[in-house]
């Protein structure tokens, strides 16, 4: 589910802004570190879960406003270099501020322990994450499908010129899309913190996975990104149960296998 969140956010950014966002993983990591800091400062997990992703979204707006906005006309090579440079900066800032050693973080008291599902014993927090992430995916989906703003975003993916000809401020659309993508990455990071702990490398690991999800889903295909995120998550969990060492590599192997058969991605049309 978390992969679906990451993939959905990245699919929005790649689809609408048409840039390779190599800072997406770093935004994810910033979300996780912000959560831990806010929890430490105010002691309330729930409030932190609201605040941290919003902070990442604000960071996203700042990044779009100060940098990416000037690069839409430049080639992908410069866009890549810019977001890659941002990723390096954010990653190193995390090390400078929070230290290079991983941090573990406990879920709030209510969500510790597990629940007996009859056939298996499952940690409460993971269940919570699955539910919340599922809700978020559905909410984002409804936003994109059922609201006016969502319709504008989808139209932005299809045909930017037409959208701006219709009198819609395309700049604002771009900023909004980047902010929403950053928000989704931030909340995915915040939710991950109590499961896997934090380490400066978490962003880079997640970045690769997010790219796989988008590539599998098909570029500009938001539903595809959600489905691909679920598929990758399940594949990884299954492999992890039998051969732990290969559980990360298998994500990329699945991608390679799918692209061999369907070069346009699972749900790609183009």
């Amino acid at each position: 589910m978390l992969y679906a969140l990451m993939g959905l956010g990245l699919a929005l950014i790649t689809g609408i802004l048409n840039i390779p966002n190599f800072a997406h993983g770093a935004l994810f990591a910033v979300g996780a570190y912000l959560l831990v800091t806010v929890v430490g400062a105010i002691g309330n997990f729930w409030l932190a879960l609201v605040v941290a992703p919003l902070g990442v979204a604000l960071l996203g707006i700042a990044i779009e406003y100060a940098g990416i906005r000037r690069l839409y006309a430049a080639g992908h090579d410069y866009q890549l270099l810019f977001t890659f440079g941002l990723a390096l900066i954010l990653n190193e800032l995390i090390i400078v501020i929070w230290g290079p050693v991983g941090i573990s973080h406990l879920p709030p008291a209510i969500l510790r322990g597990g629940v007996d599902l009859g056939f298996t014993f499952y940690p409460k927090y993971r269940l919570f994450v699955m539910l919340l992430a599922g809700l978020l995916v559905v909410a984002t989906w409804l936003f994109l499908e059922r609201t006016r703003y969502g319709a504008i975003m989808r139209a932005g993916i299809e045909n930017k010129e037409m959208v701006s000809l219709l009198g819609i401020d395309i700049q604002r659309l771009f900023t909004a899309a980047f902010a929403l993508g950053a928000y989704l990455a931030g909340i995915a990071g915040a939710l991950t913190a109590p499961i896997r702990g934090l380490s400066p490398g978490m962003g880079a690991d997640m970045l690769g996975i997010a790219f796989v999800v988008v590539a599998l889903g098909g570029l500009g295909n938001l539903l595809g990104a959600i489905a691909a995120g679920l598929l990758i998550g399940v594949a990884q969990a299954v492999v992890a149960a039998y051969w732990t060492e290969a559980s990360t590599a298998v994500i990329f192997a699945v991608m390679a296998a799918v692209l061999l058969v369907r070069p346009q991605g699972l749900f790609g049309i183009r």
Partner: protein
Amino acid sequence: MKHPAVLVIAALALLPLVVRHAIATEILIFAIFGLGLNLLLGYTGLLSFGQATFFGSAAYVAGYLLKYYGIGIFTALAIGVGVGALSALLVGYLCVQRSGLYFIMLTFALNQLFYFVAYQWTSVTGGEDGMPGIPRPALLGIDFRQPLAYYVLVAALFLLALWVMKRIVDSPLGTILQAIRENEVRAEAVGYNVPRFKLLAFVIGGAFSGFAGVLYAMLFGIVPLEAIGFVFSGNVVFATLIGGSGSLYGPIIGSVVFIWLSESMSVMWARWPLLLGVAFVIVVLFFRGGVVEAWARIWRFSKRAT
């Protein structure tokens, strides 16, 4: 630049006098790596973000054989070229179908695949600790453990690589690749099998990367895990772009600037990638077009001032 060959050779002779031999060697190795990328980026218009895949794979395979089977330098280099080309063939086969953003993301994702295999396969690669103990075998009685001797060898091989690349770029193949860069649809319409040519460029680029990878392993005596990591792929893109991807010599200038910059930053501060990131952002926002264009701009500015 009337006689670029003379200039290059003069620079090669001067380089070890200016910086330490190991750094001079590293610059040349990185330049070979950049030449391979530039065939894709500058000439074919393919932005590969996974060149470390071929660099690292070749370094691991050749390093392993150097370490345990005592093969010679040229065998190692030949194997490196082969491994680089083969891994590029595999990766390229999956990627060349797609273009633009997709291509970038796929090369990156497959780079991650190779990275995680190297990371987990600790019995062979040493995982995070890298693969140490790679020898520099002697050849014809010359002991290449001497830094200067190794520099001379790498410089000679660099000239060879540059010459080969120049031949490729000036050949009909090079022209076809540039036609693909300029207008892919038209190149297709004229009757060229565009994916096939892209794949060919990709394989050649991979071979150059592999060649550089083996030299790198022998230079440091170790294959660090970073050699196959995506940051390395990003670095070579950066070096090529700051040099200017439009020209054959761009990546060479870029390597000089990049290696010199990163070496001097890394002794200043342990968190030097932060500075590197800042440099990326500044270059992109203010100095697009690389060193060559930045120079032209400064020149114009000073002319206006007088």
